[in-house]
């Protein structure tokens, strides 16, 4: 069993939390003793942080709408269709008809990449996230 120190993904407090890994599964979570915010303490959401990770309804494969239904497809098929459609709309409208929503759940690095994708690749500043909600 390994314990790996990471940061909680719920509220803005940012507790240091250990995730317990056993045979490829995350089986538990516990607070970091010396972390400046958590100080050996977690709220009820933090103590149960690991529970959603292996939930059976996690998405495991790309889906594409075919005849009105979302159907499993390969990554390549999903991505080439997505890139074609986004590229087409962005090209036709010079960026103004494409919009992107980023996520306060994703990492800084991913947020950076998404705004770079919007601005540099799709030529639009239509990017926002749920800071106001």
């Amino acid at each position, binding site marked *: 069993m390994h314990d790996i120190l990471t940061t909680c*993904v*719920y*509220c803005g407090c940012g507790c240091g939390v250990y995730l317990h890994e056993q045979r490829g599964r995350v089986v538990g979570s516990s607070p970091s003793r010396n972390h400046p915010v958590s100080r050996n303490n977690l709220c*009820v*959401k933090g103590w149960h942080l690991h529970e959603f990770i292996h939930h059976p309804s996690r998405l495991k494969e790309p889906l594409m709408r075919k005849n009105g239904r979302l159907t499993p497809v390969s990554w390549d098929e999903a991505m080439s269709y997505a890139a074609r459609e986004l590229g087409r709309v962005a090209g036709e409208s010079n960026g103004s008809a494409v919009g992107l929503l980023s996520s306060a759940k994703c990492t800084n*690095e991913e947020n*950076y*990449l998404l705004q770079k994708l919007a601005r540099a*690749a799709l030529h639009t500043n239509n990017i926002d996230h749920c*800071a106001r909600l």
Partner: protein
Amino acid sequence: MAGLATTFGSGAMTNSINEIENAQVILVIGSNTSEAHPQVARRMFTAMDRGARLIVIDPRRTLLARRADIHLAIRPGTDIPLLNAMMRVILDENLADDLFIEMRTENFYGLRDMLFRLDLEEAAGICGVDLARIRAAAQLYGRAQKAVICYCLGITQHVCGTSNVQSIANLAMMTGNVEKEDTGVDPLRGQNNVQGACDMGALPNVFPSYQQVDNDDYREKFERAWNVSLPPKPGLTLMQMTHGGKDGQLKAMFIMGENPVLSDPVISKVEETLDNLEFLLVADIFLTETARRAHVVLPAASFAEKTGTFTNSERRVQMVRQVIPPLGQSRTDADIIMDLSARLGYVMDYESPAEIMEEIAMLAPIYGGMHHDRLENSWGLQWPCWDREHDGTPFLHKYYFTRGRGRFVPAVHEPPAELPDDDYPFLLITGRIYHQYHTGTMSRHSPLLSREAGEALLQLHPEDGRRLGLRSGDMVRMRSRRGEVQVKAQLTETVKTGEVYTTFHFSEMPINLLTISAKDHFSQCPEYKVCAVHLEKV
């Protein structure tokens, strides 16, 4: 955040979370801290054990309010008259910090003139609070050497949200409660990385580190770094994107890890917008209500399956570490974006998240010293952190405000967009509860959290319950001018008569069918805290 940015120059917590336990007076306004930010509430309780006094301004009698020395149960949406009244009392009793005002701020006379015209009795009447209690709160706050104000979405989710924030900043500056340790103005951020998403420029008007897109110098800097020409016009905000409707400007969207169908006001309008898109791409860890409407859904890796950084409410940038490989065929959002970008003909090729952070450090001054190797071996660093030698900044605005001088921006009362009337006699407030989180994408997939709080409840005063013939557990039909839901009643004295409270976590009871799309003119933050509803027993 726009409010603090215009007054202080920087929209973030001025203190660290741990400093709160050293404050002498804590003023909590529009925050249900013990449920939404448990660790911050813990610091408040520690401070109180050490003798600190607590003032809570909240329409509801929350757990924190019950422990407060002074609880001002104002009418929702009357924060400005209340704060103005407090400031007037501070002026009248000579508790203002004249030296601080003179040395560090500007436009104080604008505020003072407005305050001298204020009728205290009238202001107290608008708030529905006894003037003597307002006076006591103002004296307590005004006399403290170290005072902290914590606020949250109860302040910002109003049509006058930005003015609310500016009024809080006025109060803090007027008493000199900003530049020191253990003293400041602390907006509590609701999500683990909402601060980081803002810092990284996932906003329509700024690049990373709040460098405006319509500023030629900043744009040129990014054009050179990214080797591409960039659009100069600020883009659409979230509500402008999701409320475009049939004739909206957008034809295609990429939504990464968000669920606007449940989180945005007036859901029917959001659904109409998304259903009329030519193409909708969603990346998420579960098939959310939004993903169900997409043309392509991509399986994303959860936080346990990737490496990177989050920035918490106190501006602390800290590591997220990979524990297991991505489940099934899922991929990290970074991989998805890079793949998509390459297919669009703009290659972004990074070997690791650490390499992405190197680029961020180069382009975003406040993250200038953030490198993964430094973050790996510490508890993270608080921005601004200008370079590799800088140790980060636990509290902001020491010696001078980010914008130079702090600016007083006087505000006057602006009533909520929709108040109760004969047809819709109750005032609905929405918010969070302890055991659930946001649209429930994560927390509702956690068995224990769902066991503790598995369904939506409508908090309602027992007197109102009696009048409507309701007991706890009865179903209520709740209707606004925009929609209707059914929800279970919970009679409690947490809420005042005439006011009801519920959450937005549950897709079976999508409360945002009812909420109003009125929003703050400046920050575009929707007014989730006030709308009028009608109740009847089912």
